[in-house]
């Protein structure tokens, strides 16, 4: 079975700094894969490599077997790889519905020209786009704010909107970059359920960057740990929790070199 997302030995260096070194990853369809590591480890850089913002110096990237490294981000998105951003990047002045609409429109067949002339196909697709967008907003709990400006949304809703927007592109792989950062326990609890159910409901593989260890250990099938651009551990959550290298990366080594506790 082909992996939904597969990266093989991708690297990138900025000037003299090796930001990501020989990173490899394989995410099966419908899996929830976590990517963790201390700050500055290169996690978002990996996302940027996967989504085409940066071109990898080495290695290749595949989504359902289709080779994607070196392509433009928009081509990669069309191939089924969608993402959310660590620092929320919404289309602030546009409405909530518009944010999802623009992403959903990527799957439409009619282009600009047909929009100007308003062919029957365009009209049908436009209604379908709006319907799908509303469905997505509803399922993420923000449909009641459909007409509001995106930048006026409360923080939690903005994160939900980012997810709705990413889902609108009908992705096969979803990259979530710190989706619960800055949320309180109640909100995190809701988001946890939401993220978990995404993969079955939408048939997507999910790659998750997150700092909330409780959440990551609970919902991820498989975790990869990054430190200074290199993979230092990769495996099941239980194993990762006990891995001394991981503990060292996060907490450092205790002064009296005793048995590593957690």
């Amino acid at each position, binding site marked *: 079975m082909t992996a939904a997302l597969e990266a093989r030995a991708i690297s990138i260096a900025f000037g003299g700094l090796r930001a990501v070194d020989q990173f490899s990853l394989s995410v099966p369809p419908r899996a929830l894969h976590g990517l963790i590591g201390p700050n500055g480890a290169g996690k978002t850089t990996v996302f940027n490599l996967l989504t085409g913002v940066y071109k990898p110096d080495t290695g290749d990237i595949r989504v359902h077997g289709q080779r994607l490294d070196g392509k433009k981000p928009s081509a990669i998105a069309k191939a089924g790889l969608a993402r959310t951003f660590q620092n929320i990047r919404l289309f602030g002045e546009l409405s909530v519905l518009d944010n999802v609409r623009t992403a959903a429109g990527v799957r439409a067949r009619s282009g600009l020209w047909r929009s100007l002339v308003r062919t029957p196909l365009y009209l049908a*697709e436009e209604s379908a786009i709006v319907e799908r967008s509303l469905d997505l907003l*509803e399922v993420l709990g923000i449909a009641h704010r459909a007409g509001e400006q995106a930048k006026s949304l409360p923080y939690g809703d903005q994160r939900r909107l980012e997810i709705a927007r990413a889902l609108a592109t009908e992705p096969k792989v979803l990259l979530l970059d710190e989706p619960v950062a800055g949320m309180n326990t109640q909100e995190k609890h809701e988001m946890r359920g939401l993220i978990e159910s995404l993969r079955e409901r939408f048939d997507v593989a999910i790659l998750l960057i997150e700092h909330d260890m409780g959440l990551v250990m609970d919902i991820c099938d498989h975790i990869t740990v990054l430190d200074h651009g290199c993979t230092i551990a990769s495996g099941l959550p239980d194993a990762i929790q006990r891995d001394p290298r991981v503990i060292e990366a996060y907490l450092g080594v205790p002064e009296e070199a005793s048995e590593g506790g957690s």
Partner: protein
Amino acid sequence: MTDGEKKPAGQGPRGTLAGGNPRGVTVGDPTRPLAARVGAFRPNPLVAGVRSLYPIVIGLVIALLLQTLVAPMLGPFYAKLLLDIGIAIVLAGSLNIVNGFAGQFSIGHAGFMMVGGYASALVTYYGSIKLGWLAPNAYGVDVHGGFLGSGDMLFLFSCVFAGVVAALAGLVVGLPSLRLRGDYLAIVTLGFGEIVRVLVQQTSDVIEPAKAAGASWLTAAKHLGGPLGFTGTPTYVSPTPWLENAAGEQTGHAGIFFAYAIVSVLLVACYRLKSSSKGRELLAVRENEIAAEAMGINTARAKVVAFVTAAFFAGVGGALFAHEIGVTLNPKELGFQKSIDLVIMVVLGGMGSITGVVLAAAILTLLPELFREFAEYRMPVYALALIIVMIVRPQGLFGIKELWDLGFWRRYVIPVWRKIAGGWLIPKGEGDLPAAIAKRLSTERAGGELAKAKDSPSQGARRNGS
């Protein structure tokens, strides 16, 4: 999956995904892909055709009314003003596509105007000569034929030609723009305007009709008047039609009609651009280019399309301008100063707002004429206005919103209009939905009310929460 936290009674998780209660706007299954949904919404092709064309038809009718009824009532001075306003709307509206919709800062727009103007003058002047429509004294060319006669047809063709040539120029400017950030893009567009100006100034004087008949088009293209301007363009765009030429024939230069016909095409195009999901992609590029690219929007293509479309209409506007009565196409007049005038219109009206820019174009064309005595102070006042607006109200008059997005319009005007005209001609506002969806929602909501009554606790909680 425990975190030891007790959820307060009545607050369920939000959204249906996490098992919460559906409420409100339920329309269907979010996982159904787009392609599967399209079939349900196919409209009748005839209805779609009518819907597509009727705004243009209405626009043409309005243009005709303006020309035949309004212009004579206004008298020559105000009719000319009306014409100028129309041309200004075309130019500012086209700039709005690049600066407002796509968010690219272009300050050399007059360059496209110049390209279009000269291209159209080339066609009408030398074309008229080759077709034998000389002025009685054979020192220039004359307008030919009545309203929508062969002369007007040549003129309209020259307008389209002007638009196409300008669009090509837009491609030339748009492609490099992809690699440039805001400030640098502004400088390059400025440079473009200046380059066109320099090149035009290098051309030789216009060839006299007697000698021009035998000249090739290539030669003609090198004789565009140079620094003194393209003297002798036939004036197909004048505010008062049904003039009589020297021979006593009635010749119609229905300038206001032409100008406002083009205005209506532009405005319809802009509106459709702005309200369609594809057109919203342009706005998305303006808002956050990186996110837009990540959502599958080809930002490069969007920007180039914006430039090319804007350039096309600017070229047509330039053609209108070149053939206006009392205007000699002149490189100095269409330089940086003109570009800035257009930028001011767009900024003060609200970058991205169609109605705002139309209003600003009208006001900023009207004011200098009405306050002619203070001509000296025009630019300092405009400049000051620009600075103050940027500091105090950077979104200009309307920002990115349209007139029909404003609160008072939605509350008072639209309900009244609905009573009169039903759903016709109501532009889509920010939160409005296509008719097909709205209909389905209202039936769902009716059915959903009953379901809601049973699941009430989460309703109130959601509204109070977050």
